[in-house]
Structures are given as C-alpha cells and as structure tokens.
C-alpha cells in the first residue's frame, strides 16, 4: 500500500473525528444546563485561582469589624473574627476545588488501572483485586480518616487527599472492570493479541480509550462528591486543619446556632458557593454524559 | 383498486426527527400500497428510511419524531366485511385505537431477535401476553394456543421450550419466538423489519421459508424490509425501492427486476454479488457515499452519484412518473410519462 493512501485514510479519519468533535461540541452547546454548568465551573475556578494569585487577604482578623453584614468595604461581609468573607470564599474555593479535582482524578486513575488489570487478566488477579476493593468498600471512611489522622498526628490536607483517594476508587474500578471484561472479547482486541502486541499496550492504548467517556463523566461528578465529603468531614471535626480555609471549614460556622440565626451571611455564602459549584459540576457531568454516551443519543 | 384488494394504503407520509433542536427529514412524501395476500418488499441501503417508514406506520417512534401523512389507511377484512382505519388521524402513538390494531390486525417482526425478547420473562408468557390482552383468554387456554403455534413454527419440543427464558434459545429459535409473538393474534398484515439480518445464512433460509409458508397458506399480507436483493427476488410480489427517504421506484417484481428504470435501482442490482461471478468480472459498487440526511440540498438526492445526471436534476423536487401501470419511477429521464403522486 502506498504512503499516499495511508495518509488519506488518516486524514479522512481525522476529519471524521473533528466533525464528530464539532457535532459533540454543538450538541453540548445546545444543552443549556450543561453550558450553564460549564460556565459556572469555569468562572468560579478562574475567580478562585485569580483570587489566590492576586493574594486576597483572607486571613487578617479585624476584631473591630467582626460580623459585618455584606455591603460596603466587605462585599460579602466579615466572619466571626472580622475576616473578609469574599476573600475567604475565593481562597477556600481553591482548596476545595483542588481537593475535589485531585481526588476525583487520582481515584479515577487508580480505579481505571486496577479495573483494567482486573478485567483484562481475570482469574486470580481479578479475584484478589475484587476482594481488596470489597474490603475498602466495607470500611467506614470515618474510621480510616481517624486512624490516619491519629497516625500522622496532624489534620493536614494530605491526609484527607490520601483517604479520599483510597476510599474513592472502587466505583470507577467496577465500571472499568466490567467494560474491560466485555471489550476483551471484541475482535479488535483479538487482532491486537494475534499481532503479538504487548499486553500493557493493548490494555491502555487499545481498550482504555473506549472506556474513557464513562470515566470522564464519573470523574466529573466525583469532583462534586469529594467537595461535599470534605464539608461533611469538616463538620464532624475530622477535616482539614481549621487554618486552611476550605469551603467546608468556612461553612463550619453554621455549627453555631447563633451564627445560623443572626449572621446569615457567614454561612449562606460559603454554602451557596459549595451548592452552586456542585450543582454546576453535576449539570456539566450530565451534559457530558449526554454527549459522550452513545446509548442516550 | 378497491379496499378489498388493498390492505394498506399510504399516501404522502413524512417523518422527521428533532435532533439538536433541528428538524431532520428522514421520510419524505412516501406513498405505496400493499395488496392483500401479497408480499411487498421495501429495499434500499442502510439508513434510507425503510424502517422508519414502517415504524411510522406502526407508530413506534419516540417522542422526538414528527409523523404526518395525507392518508395511512388500513382496510381490515373481517367476515367478508371491510373496515377502514385511518391511522393518520390517531393522535396518540400508543393510544387505545393504535393498540387495538397492534396484534390482531397488524404486527411486526423485528430485526434483532437477540434484543427483541424481554430477558426476564419466559418465552411462552411473552407470546401469550398479546393473546390474553386481545381475547381475554385464560392462561391455560392461551398456553395451548401458544403450543400449537410453536409446533406450527417448527420449534422443537415446545412443551418444555415454552417455559424457557430467551437466553436459553439460539438466534434462529428466538426469531421464531418473535414471529410467534407477531402471529399469535392472527393478524392480516405482518411487517418484517429485516427479520434475518442478524441470523446466519442457513437459519435465514428457514425463517424465510416459514414466512413464505405463512403468506401462501394463510393468506397473510407481508411487508418485508430488507437490503438483500436475493430475498426480494425470492419473496416479493411487489417491490418498493427507497433512497434517502423517498420511494424512487415502485412496481411489481417483474417491473423492478426486469424493467429496471431508476438509475439507483440499476446500480443497486448491479452491486448484488452473484454466485459464480465470471473471472475478471468486477463487482460493481455505487460510487460516492450516501449523503447525510441533515445536509440535503434541493434536487434529486441521487444526483451526485448518478451517471445520467443533468443540470435539471439538481433543482426542485423531482416528481414520480408512471411508466407502466403500477410502475412508478422518480426520475426526470421519464418526464414524458404522466406524473403521479408518490
């Protein structure tokens, strides 16, 4: 076969791929909720990151101006020791979004790798990994967090990240494993095997791309899940150290009934930030599913 | 032709889908008739709208489909009496009027027997369901009927097979069950949507035999959707060739096969592989690719691929011409013949 035809087939594939991409983008754009989600996610992330780079002052207490209602010098008011809430929500966003994204991506990566191995090889390895995943699943997250916090003796960010990743990979794992089990019987996999391609190449270069869309979708929604989880752990006092202004830590002010009833802005704004972001991420995830999932087209 | 002779009369059927908030026309002013006790074959490439046309008639399309027609008339013959049903007037796809017809009057056999059966119910129950629904028959009695039909359809050991689940059946047997579901209420019109595509060749032949028997022995009318010209030649009394959502040629088997008129039909027939192809003889293909229904221009849809294309072919809507009685062709080559609807 001459080179020219190869190129032309490649080009053809490329143009087909780009037209599919265009079509998907168009489809996504037409999904107003998904578009809304994307815009909100992007705006909030950019705002938070910009806030962090500019170095908004999130940490200077001002005991003469505590619990100032929104307006004037402080757009969102000040918290119980007079720190600017707007700056805190921005800064906190960076941490919370980072926690969400990092844990979602890492747990997807681990889940995908183990799922690929388990699904592709099957047999004893599969059984072993399944057992491990069941043990992790059966473990209450709280106990793990507590043990790690106590072992490291610090309520650091890294603890939380480790725990979330450790306890978060099982769903992706199951999904990828099931997909691999059905895909490994496909002809193209058999062809690759017949060509003597390396197993790791078959797994990650040939099969995995076919599983990418559900992984992407579940990663997106996991971002929201981890952000909420962080807030919940903060609430029972097992989250990140209080000096780190995650959204969950800021929202902890709602533990105090007096704040809930008298200083609504102290908890409503971080609450809104979390809810809006999670909402947007969920819409985005749904939109991505609609675009990427062939079954629902 | 009268109502006695015609069982299904479709005039100017249009179906479009809403996708991406845009309307895409899939079936465009399709007209055809099915004669009682005969087989009509609808042929064409994949995606030409054959299945959509039939699903439009049976109203099996989802909520994003828009169906309109001047006339979809089904003439039931019961005890020598003709009852006319105007399907296009029924507002609800799955309303009581449509439901009353599905099963006892018209039924459908689907393409993929693997997925057409509900995996969680016993096949016998699935077949009996329609019967019980329409006749109010008791379970026992229905079971007898189902057994009888299974025997007739050549399902071996029906007494035990009736209590099996679909996954315990082979493809061919599953398709027999699907046919049984379609047959159980003894309908007059059976629409078979590529009933053998998913099956291997020997099974295909058995299933086709079965359908032919049904038509001949029981006087059923069959609409057979297929892209297999061999099957058409074997089964059809009349042939309807579709391309890009339009009927391009319609006529009896002889009209279409022996007096092939539309350039597309000609190309289609030339591209059929024949056993014992002579040495050096190359199987022809139709040049070009099927256009995307979403970006259709005016004129004849086949113009880009047609060897006889002229400037006129690229403008306006191409009408159909009746070149012989009952033989209609949608091509300007025959504009000397009278223009007809459909």
């Amino acid at each position, binding site marked *: 076969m001459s080179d020219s035809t190869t190129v032309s087939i490649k080009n053809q594939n490329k143009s087909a791929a780009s037209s599919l991409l265009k079509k998907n983008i168009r489809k996504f754009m037409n999904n*107003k909720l998904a578009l809304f989600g994307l815009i909100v996610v992007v705006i909030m992330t950019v705002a938070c990151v910009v806030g962090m780079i500019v170095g908004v002052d999130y*940490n*200077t*207490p001002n*005991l003469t101006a505590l619990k100032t209602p929104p307006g004037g010098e402080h757009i969102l008011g000040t918290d*119980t*020791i007079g720190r600017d809430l707007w700056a805190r929500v921005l800064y906190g966003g960076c941490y919370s979004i980072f926690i969400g994204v990092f844990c979602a991506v890492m747990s997807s990566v681990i889940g995908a790798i183990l799922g690929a191995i388990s699904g592709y090889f099957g047999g004893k390895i599969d059984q072993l990994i399944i057992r491990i995943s069941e043990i992790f699943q059966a473990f209450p997250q709280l106990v793990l967090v507590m043990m790690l*916090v*106590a072992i490291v*003796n*610090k*309520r650091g960010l890294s603890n939380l990240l480790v725990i979330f990743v450790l306890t978060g990979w099982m769903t992706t794992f199951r999904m990828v494993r099931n997909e691999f089990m059905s895909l490994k019987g496909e002809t193209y996999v058999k062809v690759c095997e017949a060509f003597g391609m390396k197993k790791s190449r078959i797994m990650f270069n040939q099969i995995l791309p076919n599983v990418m869309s559900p992984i992407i979708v579940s990663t997106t929604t996991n971002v929201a899940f981890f952000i909420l989880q962080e807030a919940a752990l903060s609430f029972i*006092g097992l989250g990140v*150290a*209080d*000096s780190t202004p995650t959204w969950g830590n800021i929202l*902890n*002010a709602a*533990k*105090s*009934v*007096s*704040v*809930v*009833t*008298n200083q*609504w802005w102290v908890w*409503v704004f971080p609450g809104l930030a979390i809810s809006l972001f999670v909402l947007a991420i969920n819409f985005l995830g749904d939109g991505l599913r609609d675009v990427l999932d062939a079954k629902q087209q | 032709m009268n109502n006695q002779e015609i069982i299904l009369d479709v005039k100017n059927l249009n179906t479009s889908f809403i996708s991406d908030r845009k309307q895409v026309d899939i079936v465009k002013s399709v007209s055809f008739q099915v004669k009682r006790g005969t087989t009509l074959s609808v042929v064409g490439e994949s995606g030409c709208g054959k299945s959509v046309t039939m699903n439009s008639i049976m109203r099996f399309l989802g909520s994003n489909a828009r169906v309109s027609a001047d006339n979809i008339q089904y003439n039931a013959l019961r005890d020598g009496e003709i009852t006319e049903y105007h399907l296009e007037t029924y507002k609800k796809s799955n309303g009581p009027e449509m439901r009353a017809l599905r099963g006892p009057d018209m039924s459908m056999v689907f393409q993929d027997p693997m997925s057409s059966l509900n995996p969680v119910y016993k096949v016998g129950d699935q077949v009996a369901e329609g019967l019980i629904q329409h006749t109010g028959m008791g379970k026992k009695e229905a079971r007898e009927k189902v057994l009888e039909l299974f025997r007739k359809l050549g399902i071996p050991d029906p007494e035990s097979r009736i209590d099996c689940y679909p996954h315990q059946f082979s493809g061919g047997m599953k398709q027999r069950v699907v046919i049984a579901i379609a047959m159980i209420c003894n309908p007059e019109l059976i629409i078979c949507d590529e009933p053998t595509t998913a099956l291997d060749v020997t099974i295909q032949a058995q299933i086709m035999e079965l359908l032919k028997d049904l038509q001949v022995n029981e006087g059923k009318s069959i609409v057979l959707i297929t892209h297999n010209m061999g099957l058409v030649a074997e089964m059809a009394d009349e042939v309807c060739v579709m391309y890009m959502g339009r009927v391009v040629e319609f006529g009896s088997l002889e009209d279409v096969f022996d007096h092939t008129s539309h350039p597309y039909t000609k190309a289609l027939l030339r591209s059929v592989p024949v056993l014992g192809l002579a040495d050096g003889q190359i199987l022809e293909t139709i040049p070009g690719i099927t256009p995307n229904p979403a970006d259709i221009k005016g004129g004849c849809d086949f113009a880009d691929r047609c060897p006889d294309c002229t400037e006129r072919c690229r403008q306006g809507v191409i009408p159909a011409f009746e070149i012989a009685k009952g033989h209609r062709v949608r091509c300007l080559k025959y504009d000397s013949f009278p223009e007809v609807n459909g």
Partner: protein
Amino acid sequence: MMRRKIALILSVALAVGMLAGCGAKGEDKKTADSTKTESQVEKGTLKLAVTTGDGSSTDDKIPTPWYNRVMATNLMFRSLFVADSSLAKASPDLADSYEISEDGLTYTITLKDGLKWSDGEALTTDDVIFSINTALKAATINSIYTAAFANITELTADANVITMKLSTPYADMINVLAQFAILPKHALENVDPLKLDTDTFWTQPITSGMYAFDELSVGNYFTLKVNENYEGTAPKITKIINYFVSDYITAAQSGNADYMFANAADQVEAMNKMDGFDSHEVNVLFYKYFLFNMKGVDGNQNEAMQDVKVRKALIEAIDRATLSTLYPSATVLNSGVPNEDKAYNGFEYKYDEEKAKKDIEASGYDMGRTLKICYYNNDQTSIDLINTVVHYLEQAGLTVEATLSNDGTTDLFTTRDYDIGFKGKSAFSMNEWYTEYMSGDALFGNVFGGDTAFDELIAQLSAATDEKESNEILKKLQDLEQEKVYKVPAFTVGTYVYTSKNVTIPDGVEFCNTLYSCDLDFENWEVK
C-alpha cells in the same frame, strides 16, 4: 423550553424560600416560643439539657458527680456541706455540725440523724468514709478532691461522728467537702474504684438529694422524681426531664431546656436574643491561658522556648485585650489573681507589636522556624481565637502553625510537640491555678520541667487560713510566675446562667460556677 424555565424557577424559588424562612426568623420567634411552651410543658416539670456534644458526658448514663457537677447531679447527690454562691463559704448539709481544732489538723463532723438514701437504706458515716477513701483511688475525679484528701492521715467514725486528721492544715477542706458528693456504699462497695465512673450504677443511681432517679432512655433523656426519703422540704417542682442534646442553644430554642449556661460568645449572643429567657451573670474563675512547652517532643528539651525573653516577647505580641472581646464579659488578667482582687500584685503584660518584634529578634530566636500552637477546644470561638493569635504572631514576623488536638491530654502533656499550648480551666479557687506549678504535678510537671521554685509557696498557700497571710503568699507567687513565664493567663471568661420565663426563681438566689454545686434554694423553684 418554557417548561424547563418554569421548572428551574420553581425549584430555585422553593429552595430560596426555605433559606429565607430561617434567615429571617428573628422577628416572629416570640409567638412560636409561647405557643410551644404552652402546648408542651407539663405543669411542674422542669426541663434540663445535658450536652453530649463536647464529650464530657455520654448519653447512656447520668453524669457522675465527682468530676464536674451539673444541675441534675446537684439535685440528686448531696455533700456534707453546701456552699454559697462564692463557693468559699459552706454550711452543713448532710452534716449536722462540725468542729476544727486550733491547729487546723483535726476535723470533727457530726452527721444528721435519720438520713436515708432514695432506696430507703440509711445514710451513715460508713458512706462518707467509703466515699472519701474511694475518691483517693478513683481515676476520673476532679483533682480538688484528691489534692485535699491526700492530706488526710486518719479517718474514723464513731456512731454518727466522723473524725478526720490531717498531716498539714488545708484551708479549703470544708469548701472542698461542700462539693464532694457522698455516694452509697451499699451500692458501690464491690465496684473497682478505677472504674467507678463507668459502673452500671449510673444507669439507675441511688440518690441522697431532693430528687430520686426515675427513668433513663438511652440516648434520649433521663427523668427525676421527688425523693420520698429526703428529710428536708420537698421541692415544688415534681418532675425533672434531662434531655441528652448535642447543642444547648438548639435545645433552648426548641423548648427543651429551662435552665442552661453559656460561656462562649456565640452562645451568649444567641441566648440574649431569645425572649423566653432571663440571664444571670455568674462570677467564676474560668481561666483561658497559654502555656509554654519547656520540655519539647517526648520530654527532650525544647530549646526554642528556654529563653524567658522569647516567652515574654511572644506574649507582648498578642493583644489579649482585643482577644477578650471574642468572649462575653471576659476580663484580661496577668496572673492567677484577677486584677481587681486585693492580692493582685499590679504587674501587667503589655501588648506592643513593635517591641515584641524587636525583643524576639534580639533574643536570637530563629525566625525561620515554625512556632507550633496546640489547642483542644473545638468550639467555634476557640478556633476563632486561635486563628487570631496565629495572626498576631505572624504580624510579629513568625511562622506559625496551629493544631487542633483531638486528644488534649496526650498532645499537651505526653507528646509535647508544640511550643505554645492554649487551655481553659474552670477553677474552684485561685489556689487551684497555682497548684499547677507544683514540680510533682503529674501533668504540668512534664511541661514546665519540674521546676521546684514554686513548691514551698504553694504548700504555704494551701495551709494558710488567714486571708492576709494568703494574700502575701499569692503576691509572692505572682512575682514568681511572672518571672518564670511558664503559663500566661489571657483572660477569665464570664459565664451566664439562663433560666426560661416558665421558671420562677425565689428571691435572693445567686448562681455559682456552673461546674460546681451551691445552694440555689431549689425547693422553692416553680415552673408555670
């Protein structure tokens, strides 16, 4: 498209409506409260809340009286004496009379006749002796008891007279006995003293006070009824319900607490905004203070804190006066003695950011090292306070890291991986503040490195019976503590007692430190 919009608007409106509903609840709360109290409160029933949120009590038994005293246990368990609201004067309760020898070493206490436990058994000197002896062996007990009882050399009883001999005079002995709850020997003699506070006795206790235990619903509540064997005036309130709650304020708001106390700013703020409650300010010695870790991780020397100049400079960098605004009626103080007390020596730690900066630099402190702060109260006000402290120290050019400890005792006194600790102490008396400096103190000895400089003075202080004498000693102790700078008080925190408007309190009742017991004339309390 329209539908989609309608749906979105509808759902958002619903959510906003709900948020708005509770945001703007201040105005019409009054009506809600009044209707609720009418419909729910039974006549003659007092409602109390026992919090489980701070880990100090569990919700499957009643609180024990030997550690902190709470209202419910005060009503169930009596002591030999009963204190007044200052906790510094006591009058006989179970005791009929008492005598102290000239040298302050022999106490003769006569018990009332015909005392009975709620189960009808007689309450005798045996119970008193059993209780004191057991207290010395118990693991979980307030140290004011062990510190006092450790001086007892001989404890005997003859009929209803108890004779107690001490090795050294102990000025507070009667006041301590006024807090010490006597427990029934016949129910507890077979219990391991170490596990006394966890015994099943506490799920159905036998009591000596005006109320007897009635019923416990684990995780929900326990109720008290009038003790028929109580020899004094029967109380007017016939039933007391104690709810186990996770949050006092919510309990008060929803009408589950007729009496409660608060000492955190947000709680006080919330309670003051509620109309259904009367507030009573209580004068207590609740110290909030910093302590410097001299010993470092696992008892190795903490080099960075050895220099007293560093310690002084760090305190100069913290504006304690401003910090005190986070707490209700907090008073800054400079030693264990409040500024307005006669014994106060007049020294003051001054806040001076610039001076602090210079002093720290001059002391040769390594500015690049991270200063570690350890604290263990996880309420919002404490967290806020620590965050502010961190800020002050950062202003002085230090790198600071604050850790909230889940396990205060280990982290502060065993692991010791910190430079500055932050603690609270609700003290029975000023003496208690100073006993923390004892070189042999099981906990603080680990932190201050067993400095014996204080021991002599502290011993004198606990023996001193004369006010003038003890003031002299206190002044010396203040000078010493300000020279050593091992621990620095930030302020004392005011406590407020709240009683609901349903409760009528007799005239002249003064509340005392809510973690101790005193005479509240409870038999004359009434509930609407």
